[in-house]
């Protein structure tokens, strides 16, 4: 049966090539028969990818241990839902999943876009046929597979990778629309058509990044919700440029130019999705989240250069399009939007620079370096503040007089300072957050109320709350404590009562757990539990950290070890983290409202 998978990929590849060449020929010489056959080939190519995906899923679920991919990522007693998610656990499968989404999109969009989508599909199919075939067979079947890495047996694995890949694949549509628009003699205004796709892609990528952060946050040793790791940066880059694009599209829609910027940003966003795959899979940069070394790096680079070259060629060849419809009237709103877009571009440049710097440095000097988190924090924090200020102050500036705005700013800063906020970064951030929320309320009450505005307000409110949560990290506390049963520990305003260890058996495993009673003043906040799990035939116990999440702060407990009566605990107090997740839910709601009725956008 798996031979059918390989054959499907082959025929899909040939069909995609036929569709590309056929449509290109029809563009020059009108030939209805050829055009129809190209359409059929394009459709067939997409359907064959669906068939190949179905075959791989079937192999994973049925435990076909002839396939090396199935052997590598599943085993007989793996839960069915992890067998399903094993589809994107490996390089080949995750590329096929991207291709699957691209093919589903192809079935939904008009044939005009198929030329570009087929080109992308052909590139991926080339990789899946010659470089990393998902259907490669072993000479003899194994009795069982090696299984999915136990760290990947997590709900994060079910949600995070497909969302990222969905976002990447959806960005292909705005790119295809822009390219097709540039090849037309009449300007079709691709931005309006692309907006729902762009918003959908942005929603998926945002959710993918945030769920990845949530997953990493709960795992010991993964660096928390964000660690400026190259692989994390790789997914942030297209997000940044796409966010800038959403803003420039709004400017363009209101007749203030930016057509050139839109084209630049949509191409950059698409290219960055491929670049992200390149960074993640080529093994070119050292990353905590490193994927295995793979030979696909040069091919992905070639793909980037191919699409970049064509985009630049079209941009230069059709640059007149960029001056059409642009009145270049700069309103206050346009100025704020432009500022936001420019700052987002600047942040993406810094992140891009930091991500590829080790590679450039190695090429030039032969030495390997690592860029620390502090580089990104130092270089981007001022830019994030400008962005936050632009977002927070615009509603105030547009609805209040200059004097009232100034009074509001000074009032908030003084109030927060009097409330005890001393850290200058926190003072600035909390001021902007307060002003931002205040501005959104004013704008909502005074300004026009429609679905579009409401959605945008919720998105901005979500981002502001995420900024609040991230700012809390300046107050992070960590303590390593040695305790005996009956001891009280005090960290900041929290007290912890340690009653001892509780060993118990569960199936084949031995658990040693502890549960602390957490108090704040006289009020009980609840209990927090952590444990070590000892596995048979595996010398290192695994740790399950305890998290007590509250809006004021998250408390993390790690049971580090013990000897005789002494128990070692690590307690982390992470203020305001819950606001990041709360902000993200509000943000999702905002985008869903924006997407609900695209005609209003």
């Amino acid at each position, binding site marked *: 049966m798996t031979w059918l998978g390989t054959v499907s990929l082959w025929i899909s590849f040939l069909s995609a090539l036929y569709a590309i060449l056929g449509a290109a020929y029809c563009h020059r010489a009108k030939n209805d028969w050829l055009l129809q056959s190209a359409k059929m080939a394009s459709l067939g190519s997409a359907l064959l990818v669906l068939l190949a995906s179905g075959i791989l899923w079937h192999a994973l679920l049925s435990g076909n241990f002839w396939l090396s991919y199935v*052997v*590598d*990522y599943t085993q007989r007693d793996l839960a069915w839902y992890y067998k399903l998610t094993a589809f*994107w*656990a*490996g*390089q080949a499968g*995750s590329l096929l999943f991207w291709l699957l989404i691209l093919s589903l999109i192809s079935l939904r969009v008009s044939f005009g876009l198929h030329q570009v989508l087929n080109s992308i599909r052909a590139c991926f199919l080339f990789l899946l046929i010659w470089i990393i075939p998902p259907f490669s067979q072993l000479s003899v079947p194994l009795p069982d*597979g*090696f299984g999915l*890495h*136990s*760290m*990947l047996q997590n709900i994060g*694995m079910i949600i995070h*990778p497909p969302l990222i890949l969905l976002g990447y694949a959806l960005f292909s549509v705005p790119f295809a629309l822009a390219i097709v628009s540039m090849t037309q003699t009449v300007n079709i205004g691709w931005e309006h058509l692309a907006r729902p796709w762009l918003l959908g892609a942005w929603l998926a990528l945002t959710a993918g990044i945030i769920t990845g952060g949530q997953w990493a946050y709960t*795992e*010991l*040793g*993964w660096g928390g919700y964000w660690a400026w790791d190259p692989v994390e940066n790789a997914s942030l880059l297209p997000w940044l440029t796409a966010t800038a694009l959403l803003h420039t599209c709004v400017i363009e829609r209101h007749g203030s130019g930016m057509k050139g910027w839109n084209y630049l940003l949509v191409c950059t966003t698409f290219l960055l999705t491929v670049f992200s795959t390149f960074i993640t899979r080529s093994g070119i940069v*050292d990353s*905590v*989240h*490193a*994927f*295995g070394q*793979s030979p696909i790096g040069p091919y992905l680079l070639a793909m980037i250069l191919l699409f970049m070259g064509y985009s630049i060629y079209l941009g230069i060849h059709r640059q007149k399009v960029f001056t059409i419809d642009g009145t270049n009237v700069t309103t206050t709103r346009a100025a704020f939007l432009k500022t936001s877009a420019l700052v987002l571009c*600047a942040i993406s440049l*810094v992140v891009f*620079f*930091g991500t590829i*710097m080790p590679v450039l440095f190695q090429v030039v000097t032969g*030495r*390997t*370096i*690592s*860029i*620390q988190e*502090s*580089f990104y924090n*130092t*270089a981007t924090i001022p830019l994030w503040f400008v962005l936050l200020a632009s977002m927070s102050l615009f509603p105030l500036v547009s609805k209040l007089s200059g004097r009232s705005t100034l009074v509001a700013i000074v009032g908030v800063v003084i109030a927060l300072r009097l409330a005890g906020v001393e850290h200058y970064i926190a003072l600035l951030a909390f001021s902007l957050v307060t002003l931002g929320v205040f501005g959104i309320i004013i704008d909502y009450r005074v300004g026009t109320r429609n679905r579009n505005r409401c959605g945008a307000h919720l998105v901005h409110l979500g981002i502001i709350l995420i900024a609040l949560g991230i700012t809390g990290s300046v107050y992070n506390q960590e303590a*390593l404590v040695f305790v005996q049963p009956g001891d009280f520990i005090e960290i900041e305003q929290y007290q912890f009562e340690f009653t001892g260890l509780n060993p118990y058996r569960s199936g084949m495993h031995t658990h040693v757990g502890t549960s602390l009673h957490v108090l704040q003043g006289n009020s009980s906040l609840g209990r927090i539990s952590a444990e*070590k799990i*000892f596995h048979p035939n*595996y*010398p*290192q*116990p*695994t*740790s399950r950290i305890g998290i007590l999440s509250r809006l004021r702060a998250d408390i993390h407990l*790690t049971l*580090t*070890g*013990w*000897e005789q009566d002494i128990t*070692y605990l*690590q307690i982390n107090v992470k203020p305001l983290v819950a606001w990041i997740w709360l902000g993200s839910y509000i943000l999702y709601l905002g985008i869903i409202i924006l997407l609900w009725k695209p005609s209003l956008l």
Partner: protein
Amino acid sequence: MKTQNKLIMISCAGMLLCTTLLFYVLQTTTTYYYTIDEVMAGGIKRQQEMRVKGHLDPTSIAFDPMGPTLTFTLTDGANQLTAIYDRPAPEHFMHADEVIIEGILLPAGYFEVRKLMLQCASRYESQEGGT
């Protein structure tokens, strides 16, 4: 035209300033990777923060499940570097192949690990042979 020239000059000055600042920040936030060979050969300043990548020798792991300290050896095939880490070990440390350690070299020749990263978090790729 004059305004345009001014704008170009201001933009160039701004870009130059930003680039200079960026390189300044970069200088203070860059950690050099050293091979185990270089670390063992000496010549590295004491207390200098560095990153070392190597293969974990699974037989070298002195892991007391009751205590917080972990001792292990990284190897590049020819040389070995003993490292000490006094925090909870990351999950599945013993199954790691490549390990990145960040920290300082102690006078006794041990490496004090301040940050321990495993390449085995390779979320989407099994190691050779599939583990």
